[in-house]
């Protein structure tokens, strides 16, 4: 079978390259925005990574970032005594400013008092530094220039960076983990804690424990780890998704327009040639397949270049802007591929109509 579609596209290499670039830019825009959203949607994941199934907070606490939760020690002790509770880990957490190298930065300090409750080596390394030390993540490290062994001072407490962890999901405000005693000194609190991280006995029903915690104690509220994490993401979803939807729509329209105009122009230019195909017996289906193949080839090439471009842009942008946290997921690649194929079909619609209207008798006009 003669590859008419490919020949037609490659007959004008310059235009083909420009059109592929147009589609690639659309794919790059859509994919980068989606990856950025996925990256930012990892916010709050720390609450899912810690071993507590439930989080006891002060009644009315909306999320860890926008409201303050204060819990008295007796409440922690009472929760510890509930059936099905293995341990309650007191947690201190607060947004704090500090000025490494003179530039003021903000960080969400967090400290967990595991007491005698055993923690895995991984949990120890990531969340439980010894006194006088702090664990930061890669984003904060790059923002502040702090690295392992560097010192910083927060509210008069000297800390040394014990470990720089991988990039966290919280790009707007990074978590830094300090020892519980250091946190008490930094926050200036004695007995009060912010949250109680509840670790359940094996086989215990989370719902039953949650009901027992709040029963008769209207000053307490309980989140699961997932709910607490989602309370952080809610803000990102509410502010980010409408913006993403518009950017994705713009990318889609731009891509479809580029493909559509290219294929339409190629069809108009080859009106006579399509007329000859009709004259010599080319069925409408045969001609549609040529146009659709051209569209699919163009968008496929644009997709491949666009994916490569998006990965490159994400890498370069993350070097320049530490908060540029992207997460390219297979489902998004699949969705964008489906969108580009939809672009191809949509973009073929007008040229196909044009082909329909070509009078094969045109071939006899000089």
């Amino acid at each position, binding site marked *: *079978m*003669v590859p*008419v579609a490919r*020949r*037609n596209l*490659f*007959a004008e290499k310059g235009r083909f390259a420009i059109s592929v670039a147009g589609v690639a830019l659309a794919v790059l825009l859509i994919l980068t925005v989606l990856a950025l959203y996925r990256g930012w949607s990892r916010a709050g994941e720390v609450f899912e990574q810690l071993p507590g199934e439930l989080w006891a907070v002060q009644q009315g606490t909306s999320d860890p970032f926008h409201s303050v939760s204060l819990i008295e020690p007796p409440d922690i002790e009472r929760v510890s005594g509930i059936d099905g509770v293995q341990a309650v880990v007191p947690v201190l957490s607060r947004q704090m400013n500090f000025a490494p190298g003179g530039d003021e930065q903000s960080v969400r300090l967090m400290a967990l008092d595991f007491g005698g409750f055993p923690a895995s080596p991984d949990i120890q390394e990531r969340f439980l530094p010894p006194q006088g030390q702090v664990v930061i993540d890669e984003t904060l490290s790059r923002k502040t220039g702090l690295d392992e062994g560097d010192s910083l001072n927060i509210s008069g407490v000297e800390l040394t960076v014990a470990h720089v962890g991988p990039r966290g999901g919280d790009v707007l405000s990074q978590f830094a983990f300090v020892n519980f005693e250091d946190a008490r000194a930094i926050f200036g609190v004695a007995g009060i804690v912010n949250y109680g991280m509840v670790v359940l006995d094996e086989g215990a029903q989370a719902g039953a424990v949650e009901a027992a915690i709040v029963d008769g104690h209207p000053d307490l509220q309980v989140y699961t780890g997932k709910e607490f994490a989602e309370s952080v993401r809610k803000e990102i979803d509410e502010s980010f998704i409408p913006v993403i939807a518009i950017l994705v729509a713009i990318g889609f329209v731009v891509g479809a327009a580029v493909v559509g105009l290219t294929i339409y122009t190629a069809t108009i230019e080859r009106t*006579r*040639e399509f007329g*000859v*195909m*009709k*004259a*010599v*017996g*080319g*069925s409408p289906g*045969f001609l549609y397949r040529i146009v659709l193949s051209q569209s699919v080839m163009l968008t496929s090439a644009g997709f491949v270049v666009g994916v490569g471009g998006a990965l490159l842009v994400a890498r370069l942008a993350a070097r320049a802007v530490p908060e540029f946290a992207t997460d390219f997921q297979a489902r998004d690649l699949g969705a964008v591929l489906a969108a580009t194929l939809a672009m191809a079909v949509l973009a073929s619609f007008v040229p196909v109509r044009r082909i329909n209207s070509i*009078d*094969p*008798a045109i*071939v*006899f006009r*000089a």
Partner: protein
Amino acid sequence: MDGKQEILRATGVTKVFGEGERAVRAVDGVDLAVHAGELVLIMGPSGSGKTTLLTIIGGLLRPTSGSVFIDGTEITALGEKDLTALRRRAVGFIFQSFNLWESLSVVENVELALNIAGRHGRFARDRARELLTARGLGHRLRFRARDLSGGEKQRVSIARALANDPELILADEPTANLDSKHGREVMHLLRDIARSDGRAVIVVSHDQRLREVADRTLWLEDGRIADMGRVVRDPVCGMSIEADSAVALEHNGLVYHFCSRGCSWEFQAEQAKRVAAGHAVGQGGDR
């Protein structure tokens, strides 16, 4: 026509463009029959309806009235789908401006016509090569169509027209964009297509030279058709002349046509000399 199969019959074909006072009768009651092995030339002034008639015969335009049969099938009664299928297998087109697919190679231009008719793969490729090689284009198979000379393009166009082995070939001004040498080449190719391959060939042209290879020449004016007779070549001076008005001479069972009595006397004198010298005589005449 010597019992040869009738390939085309057009009866009372009329085409009117527009309505009322603005109506134009491009073709007016044309009757035409063309047989296998026959090359019919249609001439006439510009705007006389030649191309419109060709377009109707080729099934690309429906007449206002009248009917067209190709190999016994009334194409004017066919639906669009059947008409397209019939064009695919029964009609080959040759155009003034060649109308090649410029982005394709020479061999692909012919192969695509086969693909359109549902013939693919090695068969299509081999058939395309064979048709092109037979027309002296074996060394140009991989060339882009746009890189060929006019004469070569028209030969590709002819090969493409023959790809699906059609019984009827329609050529619209096939020599108009060619120089004298290539025009003559195309003329002889068309004659061969009719005589050797036994196809019916209809040529619309202003080119008087084509009368030399045509079996019949028709004159179309104001949409109406008339027989122009046959053009023959004077064997003495080489001039093309109308057979009906030429000086005719029968010699050794053949009829010779001359532009003047002078040429016929010269011919007779030459034949007498040849007989005296014991050479063969009588070439270029009609039985």
